[in-house]
């Protein structure tokens, strides 16, 4: 009976030790995966920033003004303001 208990204890210890080794090995590689994912996240975030930079550069008034000149746009000439006709009832008051 004692021998069986001792054998069982050894077996449990062995299984736990083996499990710990497997878990630690897994965590070690997970650390590497995590670092890789972090690098990819940083890369994508940087690409987003680069695209935002490009948008800002292309929509600056300084650039648009130069492009407009190059494409042959010109400033508006006379600008007329259109005022709506007053209702007939108010014409008399006017």
């Amino acid at each position: 009976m004692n021998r069986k208990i001792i054998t069982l204890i050894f077996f449990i210890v062995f299984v736990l030790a083996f499990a710990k080794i497997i878990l630690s090995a897994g965590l070690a590689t997970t650390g590497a995966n995590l670092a890789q994912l972090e690098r990819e996240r940083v890369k994508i975030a940087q690409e987003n920033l680069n695209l935002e930079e490009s948008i800002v550069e292309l929509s600056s008034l300084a650039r648009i003004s130069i492009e407009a000149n190059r494409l042959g746009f010109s400033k508006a000439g006379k600008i007329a303001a259109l005022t709506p006709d007053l209702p007939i009832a108010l014409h008399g008051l006017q």
Partner: protein
Amino acid sequence: MSMTSWRYKTLQVIFLLCNLLVIFRLFYWQILSSPRLQALAESQHFTQEEIPARRGQILTSDSFPLVTNKQAFLVYGLLSQIKSEKNEIAAKIAEIINPEDPKAAKEELKDVLDKKDINWVPLARSVDRETKEKIEGLKISGIGFEEIAKRYYPEASMSAQMLGFVGRDANGREKGYFGIEGYYNRTLEGKPGFIKEERDATGQPILIGQSDSESEIAGRDLKLFIDRGMQFMVEDKLKKGIERFQAKAGLAVIMDPKTGAILTMSSFPNYDPLKYAVTDKSLFSNPVIGQTFEPGSIFKPLIMAAAINEKAIRPDDKCTRCDGPRQIGEYTINTWDGKFHPDSAMTDILVYSDNVGMVFVSEKLGGQKEIEYIKKFGIDEPTNIDLEGEMAATLRKEDEWVTIDFATASFGQGVAVTPIQMVRAISAIANGGELMEPHVVAQIKDQDKILETKPKVIRRVISPTTAKVVTEMMVAVAERGGKWDRPKGYRIAGKTGTAQIPIAGHYDKTKTVVSFVGFAPADNPRFVMLITLTEPALTWGSMTVAPVWFDISKSLLNYLKIPPSF
């Protein structure tokens, strides 16, 4: 004692001494050297990195980034690892970083690479991504890159003096200087974070190891009242005006008179904020807030408003002393054109910009009241605008004023103002009598909340009735004061000014500062604008700055979609 006993005791002593030695060494390594060894172990197993905080952006009213951040790189060399010929390396890198002058760049790089007493040397700062990739493509061993953030100005040097620039403080940390960058440095800079984690021999993080971190707090973004389209247009027209009239300098500032919001602020000459290190330091100061000038005739509406508010004069009163020059002590006050207008009405004094008439008004008002109102209009105090570098013009002490000082102050000579003080004072006439605090920043944007700038009334200066009366006088000036190409269908209030520049105790008649200040539409002003030109080729404001003012105002009225009123 037997021989055996003697040997035994000797061995005992030797063993005891050896044990004591071991105990002492253990004590030394485990107790005395423990902190040092712990730190050494930590440095091998732990890495600590600072996470830099993103500096806040500065946005215009349409949320376009006037100032933002761009990815940049510091190129460095590790001299111990550079195997290739240094001359060749310098030549190749110089071609990439300075294609316009590769020879000069090569010489500088060669000097750096030839250093003997250090290993790490900086080769180029703030290079962009494309340049970095080109240098990387050379595959030179010993050349490395460190990523840094660089301030980026999509609209180039637009509003440079209002924005300020970002440099480095004594500790090498980023710091804003002048303008918005300086005033709001603490708000923009954020707080760096750090990450400290245990890593294995290959440098990978150990998930179940110890770690500590604090997230960085990004700097807060600022949204301005500045309208990007208006700013661009005003800068373009101001620059052309300066060139056309061959002025040495010029500035324009536009304010919403009802709220104190600064809609545009421009000055020339300006500079490129990215090249602050090689810029003449005298250009850093924003002349709108940091330089004073004698305003000349644009000051007259303030004195006129004071006299009407105090009921010292009425608008229909006649000037009984306007038939010739005025003698005050040893000084003679004359009109600008040598013409006199006897019995002119108060409005005509402004229309003709009559200095003799203004002396009459000043005498009716009284010296003490004149100083009181000049102070009430804010001329003796800073405006507290949210920009670094404001220099408030102040008046001399009251007991130092003599009769001639009151006379000359009435037409804007002998007093000094900054442009922002002047535009704020005229805004008090435009908005019905209240002095407003000017502001450039409309919102401070956090991750969680937005802080809005509310309009702030400093004090009431004149009554609404007085403001209306003086507005009508200024409308008469704009309509009758000169042959200008005014916007059709709008009532515009304005005043020209030509002030001689004091040089070495006397006024130089050939050197003037010309100004035009005004607001539109007169009945419900949407903007107050001041433009000044320094030392134009033609000395009179009505011939130079007034046409520039009206040209800009036409575009502004269209841009703001303000329909004509008649």
